[in-house]
C-alpha cells in the first residue's frame, strides 16, 4: 500500500498536480470544499434535467451520485465539466466562483472526467487518444515515444493491461473503459468525475480500481462517482447525493450502518427486493449447440478457440468473463454477423453458420447487443421507430398496406410504460435520452415477442436498480416461455441470480462449465484464467 502511495504521488509530481505545497495543504484542515454547485438549473426543450440542485464535494473524499436512469446525474456532471452551460446557478471551485465554458476551462481547474459514453476516437490508437488530451512537451510536434512509454509503465503499474498501439475500434468495451481511466490518471486532476466507471468491469477489476481511487483520495483528490451499484457506493463513498427527476432528494454521509435499502428508498421511493419468480422451469430439448468453434477477430488474431457448449429450451447459460475474451465475437457469430474459421453451430437441426442476420432474426434468435449506441439504436430516430426497428414487418403494427402509425404509437406507449422509459414522449429523438433510458429501448424491443434463443449481452449494464429488477424478471419470464438463453455478463451477481449453468470464458476458450453451486471464488479464478488441477466438472 505504502509503495503504491509513493508511486502515485510520484505520478502526481510528474504531472504537476500534487506539488509538495499541495500535499502539505492537503494535510491541513481545509474549510473550503473543492466543488460547490449552487442552485443549478438546466432544462432541455422545456423539461428540467436539473432543477435547483446543490452539490458539494469535499477535499479528499469520494462522493457518490445516485439516482434512477434519467435523474440528471450525467447532466449535472457535464455542467461541472463545461460540456453544458447551466441556465442558472453558480459553481465554486475551492471557494472561488468560476465560469466553466468548456472542458478546457474544466481541465485548467484540474477537473478530469471519465465519461459514461466513451470519449475515444475510434480510428486512433490508444497513445494518440491520450496525446489528444495533454500538452506535448515537444509542441508543435508529437512526443509519441515518451507518452507511449508512460502508458506502458502506468498500465503495468495498475494492471490495466493496455496495448498502446491498438486502435480503439479493436478494443472491447471493457478495454476502452480502462483506456479512459488511464487517460484520467495520466492527466492528473484535483477533482475526478467518474460516470459509471465500473459498469463494464468485473468485481475483481472494480476492486483494483477502487484501491486506486482510495489512494487518490488519500492524497487529497476529490472524486465524484456515479454508479448504480449500491454495494460499490457503500464500499467506497464517504457521502452521497441523491437525485430524482432532476431534483436533489437527499444527501447523507455513508457510515458503516448505512444500508442498501435506505439508499434505494431515497432513489426509487420503494424497496427493491430481487424476489424473482419462475426460476423452476422444465428444461426441454437442445436448442443451440456449438462444437469446436474457432474464429479470428478484426486484427486476424485468434479470438475463439474450440468453444463447445449447448443450451436447452428453458435453460439459462451464463457466460461469465472479463470483457474482451471473445464474448463480442461469439455473439456476432451467433447472430450471423461474423464468419468462423472452424467448428459447427446448430440451432435445433439447422446449420446456423449458413444463416444471414435476417434469417437469424426469422429463426427467432434475439440479441441484446453489447455496444448499444452503435449497434442497437438509430440515434437520430425517435423512440417509437427504434422500438419497432426489428418487427417492422410484423402484422401487429401494420395496416392493410402500410405501417399503421396508430398501432406503432400504441405499442410504443405500452412499452414505454412497461419499461418505465423516461422520455418526454414517443416522438423524442433517441440520442437525447439518458444513457440508461436508451438501453431500456433496446431491451423493450428485443424482449418483445417469443424468442427461441435469446442472447443477452450485459442486459442490465447501466440500468438503475428498479429497472434491473424488472429486466431480470423479464429474462426469467422468457425462460418460463421455453426460450434458450445465453446470458453474457461480467456482473457475477446477475450471473448467479439467473443462470442454470455457468460457462466461464477466458482468452477465447471455455475454461469450464459449472453449476452455480460452485461458488463465486471458483468462477472468479476461472475468469482470471486460473484452472485448478482437480477435475473442473465440465458437463458440456
Amino acid at each position, binding site marked *: 500500500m505504502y509503495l503504491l502511495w509513493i508511486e502515485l504521488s510520484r505520478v502526481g509530481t510528474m504531472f504537476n498536480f500534487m506539488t509538495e505545497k499541495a500535499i502539505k495543504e492537503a494535510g491541513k484542515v481545509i474549510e473550503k470544499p473543492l466543488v460547490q454547485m449552487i442552485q443549478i438549473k438546466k432544462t432541455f426543450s422545456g423539461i428540467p434535467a436539473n432543477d435547483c440542485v446543490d452539490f458539494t464535494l469535499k477535499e479528499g473524499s469520494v462522493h457518490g451520485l445516485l439516482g434512477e436512469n434519467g435523474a440528471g446525474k450525467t447532466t449535472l456532471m457535464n455542467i461541472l465539466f463545461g460540456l453544458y452551460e447551466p441556465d442558472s446557478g453558480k459553481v465554486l471551485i475551492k471557494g472561488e466562483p468560476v465560469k466553466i465554458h468548456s472542458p478546457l476551462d474544466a481541465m485548467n481547474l484540474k477537473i478530469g472526467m471519465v465519461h459514461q459514453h466513451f470519449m475515444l476516437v*475510434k*480510428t*486512433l490508437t490508444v497513445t494518440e487518444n491520450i496525446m489528444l488530451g495533454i500538452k506535448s512537451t515537444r509542441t508543435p510536434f508529437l512526443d509519441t515515444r515518451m507518452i507511449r512509454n508512460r502508458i506502458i509503465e502506468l498500465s503495468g503499474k495498475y494492471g490495466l493491461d493496455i496495448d498502446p498501439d491498438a486502435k480503439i475500434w479493436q478494443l472491447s468495451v471493457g478495454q476502452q473503459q480502462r483506456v479512459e481511466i488511464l487517460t484520467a490518471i495520466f492527466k492528473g486532476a484535483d477533482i475526478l468525475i467518474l460516470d459509471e466507471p465500473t459498469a463494464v468491469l468485473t468485481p475483481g477489476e472494480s476492486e483494483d480500481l477502487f484501491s486506486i481511487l482510495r489512494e487518490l483520495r488519500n492524497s487529497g483528490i476529490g472524486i465524484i462517482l456515479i454508479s448504480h451499484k449500491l454495494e460499490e457506493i457503500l464500499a467506497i463513498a464517504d457521502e452521497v447525493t441523491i437525485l430524482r427527476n432532476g431534483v436533489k432528494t437527499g444527501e447523507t454521509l455513508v457510515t458503516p450502518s448505512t444500508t442498501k435499502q435506505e439508499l434505494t428508498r431515497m432513489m426509487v421511493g420503494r424497496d427493491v427486493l430481487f424476489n424473482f419468480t419462475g426460476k423452476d422451469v422444465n428444461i426441454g430439448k437442445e436448442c443451440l449447440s456449438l462444437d469446436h468453434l474457432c474464429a479470428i477477430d478484426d486484427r486476424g488474431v485468434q479470438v475463439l478457440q474450440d468453444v463447445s457448449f449447448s443450451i436447452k429450451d428453458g435453460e439459462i447459460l451464463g457466460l461469465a468473463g472479463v470483457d474482451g475474451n471473445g464474448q463480442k465475437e461469439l455473439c456476432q457469430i451467433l447472430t450471423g454477423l461474423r464468419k468462423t474459421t472452424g467448428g459447427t453451430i446448430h440451432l435445433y437441426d439447422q446449420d446456423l453458420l449458413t444463416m444471414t442476420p435476417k434469417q437469424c432474426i426469422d429463426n427467432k434468435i434475439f440479441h441484446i447487443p453489447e455496444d448499444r449506441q452503435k449497434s442497437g439504436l438509430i440515434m437520430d430516430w425517435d423512440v417509437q421507430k427504434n422500438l419497432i426497428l426489428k418487427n417492422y414487418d410484423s402484422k401487429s403494427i401494420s395496416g392493410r398496406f402500410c405501417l399503421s402509425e396508430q398501432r406503432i404509437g400504441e405499442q410504443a406507449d405500452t412499452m414505454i410504460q412497461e419499461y418505465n422509459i423516461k422520455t418526454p414522449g414517443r416522438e423524442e429523438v433517441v440520442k437525447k435520452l439518458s444513457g440508461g433510458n436508451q438501453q431500456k429501448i433496446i431491451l423493450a424491443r428485443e424482449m418483445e415477442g417469443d424468442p427461441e434463443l435469446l442472447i443477452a449481452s450485459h442486459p442490465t449494464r447501466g440500468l438503475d436498480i428498479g429497472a434491473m429488477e424488472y429486466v431480470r424478471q423479464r429474462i426469467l419470464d422468457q425462460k418460463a416461455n421455453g426460450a434458450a438463453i445465453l446470458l453474457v455478463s461480467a456482473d457475477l451477481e446477475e450471473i448467479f441470480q439467473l443462470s442454470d449453468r455457468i460457462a466461464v470464458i477466458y482468452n477465447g476458450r471455455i475454461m469450464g462449465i459449472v453449476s452455480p453451486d460452485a461458488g463465486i471464488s471458483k468462477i472468479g479464478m476461472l475468469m482470471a484464467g486460473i484452472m485448478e488441477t482437480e477435475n473442473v466438472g465440465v458437463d458440456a
Partner: protein
Amino acid sequence: MSNNLYIDFMISLLAGTIRISIPILLPALGQIYTQRSGILNLGVEGIMIIGALSGFVGAFFTGSLWFGVFSAVVAGLLFSLIMGFLSITIKANQVIAGTALTILGTSLASFLYRVIFGIRKLPPIIDSFPSLNFLGLSKIPVIGPIFFNHNILVYLALFLVFFTWFVLEKTTFGLKVKAVGEFPRAADSKGIRVGLIRYICVAIGGMYAGLGGAFMSIGYMDTYMDHMIAGRGFIAVSVVIFSRWDPKRALFAALLFGGANVLQMRLQSIGVNIPNQFLLALPYVLTILVLVGVSKKVAFPSAFTIPYSRNSK
C-alpha cells in the same frame, strides 16, 4: 512514328503530366486538411479562380511573381473563410454552401477582371515563373527534361506533399484535426476547440487552393482567363477521396489525372482519329470511373459534413 519522335513524344507527355498535375495536387493537399477535419468544401473551384486572378493581378501590377503568389494565398484564405462561416458558424449544408461559393468565385473573378483590365483585344500577359535547370541537370537526356526542367512552384508543390504528411502525422495539430473529423465530441471533451480547428483547416485548404489557382495564371499560362481552372477544383476533391486522405497517394492520383489530361491534349495535337470531344472528356470520365470504383471501399471521417454543436447529444 519514328523512334526519335516517339521518345520526344513520351518525354513531353511525362514532363507535361508532372506540370499539369500540380494545379490538381495543390488544392487536393489543402482539402486533405479540410476533409480530415470533417468538412467537404466544394467551393475549391471558386477559390482557385479567385487565386488565379489575385495571383495574376498581384504579379501584373507589382512586377513581382512572388508578390503574386502571396496575394493568391491570402485571397484564397480570405475567400475560404466564407465557407468556414457558412459551414461552421451557421452550420449550413456543406454541399450547398460549397456550390454557392464556386458560383460566387467564378462570377466574382470574371467581374473583377473586367473592372480591373477593361475590355481588351489582346489579354494582358506577364512572364510566368521560369523553368529551373539545376546547374545543368536539366540537360541530362530524357531524365533532365522530365524531372529537372520545371519552375519553382512545381518543386514547392512536391515539397508540400511531404509537409502535409508531416503535419498530419507528426504534429499535435494534425492529431487534433483527425480527432475533430472523427469524433468532435471527444475532441471537445479533451479541450480541443472543434470550431477553431475546423476554421483553420478550411483556411489552410483555401491557401493551398489559392496557390493552385496562381499556378495556373502565373506558373503555367502567363495570363488570366475566366475558364482556366476548368473543373480542376472538383477533380481535386475527388482526388482527396480517391487517395483516402493520404498526401502521398494524392500525389499519385493527381499524376494519374494530370496524365489523362496531357495524353488527351497530345493526342489531339498529333491528330489521332478520335473525335476530340471524346478526348476532352477523358479526364472527367476517368474521375467518375475512379470514384465509382473507390468510393464504396473508403471509410470517410465519421463526422464528415456533420456540423458540431455541443448541446445536441
